């Protein structure tokens, strides 16, 4: 203590005291912060809802109604949840360009911050599936790929093809390819059942299984193709067609070329 007292007039003493004071204030703040932070969150949340409501009025209300109650041009959004908004707007499907058999994914027009605000507003209309956090759709267990493959073949492969390349449905509708779909959007599609896709709610397909399916789809997308060209992974039909048209075509062209070139000394 004497040593400390002796150095109280040291040029750096003021600085040390200042640092100590700052550390103490910071520590106290950290200790009492949670309550304040929660308050800040709620106000941020209500701010997001406010902002989302404005965005909704401009971009969505012409079809979905001013309060999201729906109209003849678009369904009600009460109870679809933030996951549905994040999927539809985050993949560029909404806002829709035109009506038709199916609304395709296209260029995303809103920033992720705006999408979150829209999602917050729509979620405030009624309880629904909540957009997942990164932990929910990011698998850490390598066994998840195999389990997800089994679940994928039971629940998804009938429409999206066993390699996730998509396929045709009735009257111009189709199951899109999953090659360029982000893990979060795959997860949200299962939660919400966008457009004609049935939903796979947590009650019949638990969160853990959704994560396994996402792991399988991501793995399949990154998987090299040991056999060469995958030709869309559509199976023997495309492979046969390729063989018959290109391989047989090349053979016929070669045969004609050989026969058309005479070896005679006198060219006629």
């Amino acid at each position, binding site marked *: 203590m004497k040593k400390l007292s002796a150095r109280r007039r040291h040029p750096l003493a003021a600085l040390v005291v200042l640092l100590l004071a700052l550390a103490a204030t910071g520590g106290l703040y950290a200790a009492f912060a949670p309550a304040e932070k929660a308050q800040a969150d709620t106000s941020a949340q209500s701010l997001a809802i406010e902002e989302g409501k404005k965005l909704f009025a401009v971009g969505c209300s012409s079809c979905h109604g001013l309060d999201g109650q729906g109209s003849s041009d678009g369904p009600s959004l009460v109870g679809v949840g933030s996951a549905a908004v994040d999927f539809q707007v985050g993949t560029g499907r909404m806002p829709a360009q035109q009506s038709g058999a199916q609304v395709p994914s296209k260029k995303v027009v809103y920033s992720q911050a705006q999408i979150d605000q829209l999602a917050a507003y729509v979620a405030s209309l009624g309880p629904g599936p909540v957009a997942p956090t990164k932990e929910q759709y990011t698998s850490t267990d390598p066994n998840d790929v195999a389990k997800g493959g089994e679940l994928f073949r039971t629940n998804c492969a009938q429409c999206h093809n066993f390699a996730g390349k998509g396929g045709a449905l*009735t009257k111009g509708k189709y199951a899109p390819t999953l090659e360029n779909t982000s893990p979060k959007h795959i997860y949200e599609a299962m939660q919400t059942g966008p457009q*004609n896709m049935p939903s*796979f*709610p947590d*009650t019949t*397909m638990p969160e853990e299984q959704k994560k396994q399916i996402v792991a399988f789809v991501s793995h399949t997308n990154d998987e090299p193709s*040991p056999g*060469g060209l995958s030709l869309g992974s559509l199976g023997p039909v495309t492979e046969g067609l390729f063989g018959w048209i290109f391989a047989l075509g090349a053979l016929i062209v070669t045969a004609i070329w050989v026969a058309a070139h005479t*070896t005679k*000394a006198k060219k006629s």
Partner: protein
Amino acid sequence: MSHEMSDEKLPESHGSEGHEAAVHGDPFADPGLPAHEPRRTDIDERAAKRAERQVSLLFIVSMLATVGFIASYVAIDIDKIVYIFPLGHVSALNFALGMTLGVALFCIGAGAVHWARTLMSDHEIPAERHPIEADDELRADVIEQFKTGAAESGFGRRKMLRNTLIGSMALVPLSGVVLLRDLGPLPEDKLAHTGWEVATPAKPLKLINMNTNEPMKPEDIVTGSLTFAKPEGLEEDQEFFQEQIAKDALMIIRIAPEDLKDRKSADLGFEGILAYSKICTHVGCPISLYEQQTHHALCPCHQSTFDLADGARVIFGPAGHPLPQLKITTDEKGFLVATGDFQEPVGPSYWERP
């Protein structure tokens, strides 16, 4: 007929009458074979030597490719992946084996073709056609022998002999037909029933979710969702699981009650939850391409389409019957259960189908 024939022979008779005139006047006269033209390799020994070297080179390339095939088989690791434009990431071993074997076979073929075209003899050799029919004398002789043989056997005269021979010949194939019975047990009425037949109103059978292997409650099944189910007690490690699930598989959907168009189908369900057979009634493909807004289920094999909101009525495609529906309700604990078998046999039509 005779008139036409004489017409056809007209040019020929003309030709024989005045040979000199026919050669100049008849545009259809047979020009005969063109004169043989030699190839460069026939007249130029250096060209022939060069062709020989070309063919040998192709065969040598083939040999090298075969050596390369064996070398790649030994040297390249089976897990090695390489990037090759335009194929993308492929197995190095597969690519090397395919390329070397392809080159080896192609060079043998190309060498053989080049050899035949440049060095083997190419003199045209006419092969005259001959009538296929035997001459009249031989045919008369064969017919005479057949008649003699038939008369000597007494086949036409001894009726009992003839009839018993025909009878024995007709019966012999039956032994082969009887052996078909060894192909396996008869199906009996197995096609008419599924694993759900043990369910009764007193002793119902729970519907088990294929994902979780747990029974389900009505509140688990959300409108617009799709779930696959199997009967309680059927497990994947059982010996006849594949045979059983091929008949028992269910798809569970929930449709808002106001969207249901068929009263009877709605009554078989529970508060809009409907349990349909997953097996197409056309040729038995598993059908589960369900569109939750149109309520259509599409079969991927032949595009049969069923309207699940209207009792699975066939609205497109070759299927002959609606998808069979399973009557479901809840038990005292609130789980979804079946109280009997499907309303009709599942899967494709068959001869004795009621």
